[in-house]
C-alpha cells in the first residue's frame, strides 16, 4: 500500500479528488434525504443541519401508523417482484427463440419489438386504461403487473438476445450430442452461460416495476392498492407538505432497491461489461 501511495502522481491525486467530488454530488441527496427524515425540524433551516439536530424516528413511526405505507410497501413488492419474474421468464424464451431461429418472420418480429419501444407511455396509457377497464383489469395489481411487464419486455428481450447471440451455437449442439435435448441444452448449458445477462434483466425489471409511477397512477384507483411511488406523492397536501414524513417515505422507497442493487452489483457490472463467453 505504502509503495502504491508513493507512486501516485499529482494527476492521479487530482483524478481521485475529482472522483470523490463526483461521488459526493451523487451521494449527497441520499444523505440529505436520510438526515431530513430523521429530524422534525424544517429541512430549510439555516444554517442547514448536516447532522440531525435532535435525531428521532417519529416520522417513520407516523407514516407506518397513520398512512398505509406498510400496505403500499407490500403492494410495490408484489408488483416489482411479479414484473421481474414474468418479464424475465418471458424474455428468456422470446430472446432465445429470436436468437436461434432466424427466419424472415423472426427478424421482422425482432424489429417490431424494438419499434414498440419507441412509443411513449403517455401515448398508450389512455387506450390501455380503456382496454383494462373492459377486461376488468383496472384497479388491480395483476393489471399493473401486466402493464409493467409489457413495458419492460422489449428491453429485456433485446438485452438477453444479445447475450444468447454471443454464445456459440456449437456449444449447444455439443450439449445435444453429449446427451441433452434441445430444451435441455438450453437450460443446462446456455442459460448458465447467460447468467450475467439474466441478473441484469431481473434487476432491471425489478427496479422498473419498483419505481414505475405513470402506469401505477393511471391504472390503480383505490388507496389500498397504491404502490409506494404513488403513495409518495400523497404526502404533498394542497396546502401543507411534511418534508420529514415525505423523506422518511422516500427512504423506505429507496432502501430495498439500494439493497437489491448492492446484492446483484457484482453480476450487474460483469453483465453490462459483457464478453461473457469467449473461446
Amino acid at each position: 500500500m505504502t509503495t502504491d501511495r508513493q507512486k501516485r502522481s499529482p494527476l492521479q491525486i487530482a483524478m481521485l479528488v475529482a472522483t470523490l467530488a463526483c461521488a459526493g454530488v451523487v451521494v449527497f441527496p441520499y444523505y440529505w434525504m436520510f438526515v431530513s427524515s430523521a429530524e422534525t425540524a424544517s429541512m430549510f433551516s439555516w444554517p442547514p443541519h448536516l447532522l440531525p439536530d435532535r435525531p428521532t424516528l417519529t416520522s417513520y413511526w407516523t407514516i407506518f401508523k397513520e398512512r398505509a405505507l406498510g400496505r403500499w410497501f407490500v403492494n410495490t413488492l408484489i408488483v416489482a417482484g411479479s414484473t421481474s419474474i414474468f418479464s424475465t421468464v418471458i424474455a428468456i424464451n422470446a430472446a432465445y427463440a429470436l436468437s436461434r431461429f432466424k427466419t424472415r418472420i423472426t427478424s421482422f418480429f425482432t424489429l417490431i419489438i424494438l419499434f414498440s419501444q419507441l412509443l411513449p407511455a403517455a401515448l398508450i396509457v389512455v387506450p390501455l386504461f380503456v382496454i383494462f377497464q373492459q377486461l376488468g383489469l383496472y384497479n388491480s395489481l395483476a393489471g399493473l403487473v401486466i402493464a409493467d411487464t409489457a413495458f419492460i419486455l422489449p428491453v429485456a428481450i433485446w438485452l438477453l438476445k444479445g447475450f444468447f447471440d454471443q454464445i456459440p451455437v456449437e456449444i449447444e449442439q455439443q450439449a445435444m450430442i453429449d446427451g441433452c435435448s434441445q430444451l435441455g441444452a438450453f437450460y443446462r448449458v446456455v442459460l448458465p452461460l447467460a447468467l450475467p445477462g439474466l441478473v441484469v434483466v431481473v434487476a432491471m425489471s425489478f427496479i422498473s416495476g419498483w419505481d414505475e409511477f405513470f402506469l401505477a397512477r393511471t391504472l390503480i384507483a383505490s388507496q389500498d392498492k397504491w404502490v409506494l411511488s404513488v403513495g409518495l406523492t400523497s404526502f404533498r397536501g394542497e396546502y401543507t407538505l411534511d418534508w420529514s414524513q415525505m423523506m422518511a417515505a422516500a427512504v423506505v422507497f429507496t432502501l430495498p432497491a439500494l439493497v437489491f442493487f448492492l446484492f446483484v452489483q457484482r453480476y450487474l457490472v460483469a453483465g453490462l461489461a459483457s464478453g461473457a463467453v469467449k473461446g
Partner: protein
Amino acid sequence: MANVKVRNLKKVFGSVEVIPGISIDVTDGEFVALVGPSGCGKSTLLRMIAGLEAIDAGTIAIGERIVNDVAPKDRDIAMVFQNYALYPNKTVAANIGFPLYMAGMGRAERTEKVNAVMRALALEPLAARYPKQLSGGQRQRVAMGRAIVRNPQVFLFDEPLSNLDAKLRVKMRAEIKELHQRLKVTTIYVTHDQVEAMTMADRIVVMRAGHMEQAGRPLDLYDRPANRFVAGFIGSPSMNFVDGSVTVTGNGASFVSTNGLAIPLPAKDAERLSGAKTLGIRPEHIDMQNEEAEGFIPMSVVIVEPTGNEATFIVRSGADELVVALNGRHDHRPGDTVWLRPAAGKLHFFDAKGDTV
C-alpha cells in the same frame, strides 16, 4: 463401433440444393475424410449424420439402425467442432465428464473414466482449469477427450485443426491419427485441407457442390484422379494444367498448348488421347536441368521458392507457365533458361468435360 451408410441424402436450404443426393458407405473402423472447397456441403453432410441438421430426403444408418428421426444424443456419436465448443463454465474434468454425467453414470465410475482419458491425453495437470485458461492445442485435446470418454460408435470431426497454427496442426494431426489407430472407432473427418485428408484418412471422399467427385484411397486419388477437379485438389503444390490438343507429327505425337508450347508424347498414345483437351502434370513429376537434351523443352525460370529440403520453381515459356518441384538444392536463378521433361508415364489427360481420358 459401427459402419455408416448414407443413401441418396438430400439437403435444401431455401431454394438452394446444397446436397442434391449423395451416397457414402463408411465401413466399421474406417477413417474417412470428406474434403472439398468451402461451400461444397461437406460440413452440412457431417451435421446431418450428427443429427444437427434436418434431412430433406434419403436415409442415414449407423450400424443397422436408420437414424433419420433419432435425436443427436441417441445416435451414439461424438463430435469435435472447429471451435472445440468447450463449456466455458466447466473445468477440463467436468467438460470431459459431461457426456457421462448426462448418461447417468455414477460419480465414482465417472471419475475413473475421466481420469483415464485425461491420463491418455496428458491433461491430468490441467484437470481443474477452465477452457479460457488453456492454449489452443490443449482445448483441442479436451474436446477430443470429451469425444472419446463415452466410447461412441462413430467420431465426427468438423475441421478440428483449422484454428491451430501450422506447427501445432501437424502435431495434432499425428495425435488424432494415433488415437484412431489405437481405438479403431469409425471416423468421419471433414476438412478443406487436402494434406490433412491425405495424411490421416484410410479413404478420401472429394466433394464439390454437394456431389461426390471421387472416393478412394489417398494415393489412388493422387495417382488416378477421376477428373480435373480432383486432380487439381489433391496434391501440393497443385497439378499444372495446360489447355490444348494432341497433334500427330511425322515421327511422333505431342500435346500442343493453345499458346504453342509442345510437349512430346509417345506415338502409341496419340489415338487414345485424341479427345484430350487438357494435359495435367504434377510439379514433382517434371525433370529439370541446365543443359539442352533430346525430348526436353526450354523454358525460363521466373520465381524460385526454396524450402530447404525441396524447392519450387515457376517457369515460363511464352504464355505457358508451369510449377516445378524438385528435391534437394539447386542453383537455378530467375532469368535462367532451363530444360524440362515430364516424367515418363506421369501425364494426366482430361477431355472437354474435365473427365480423365
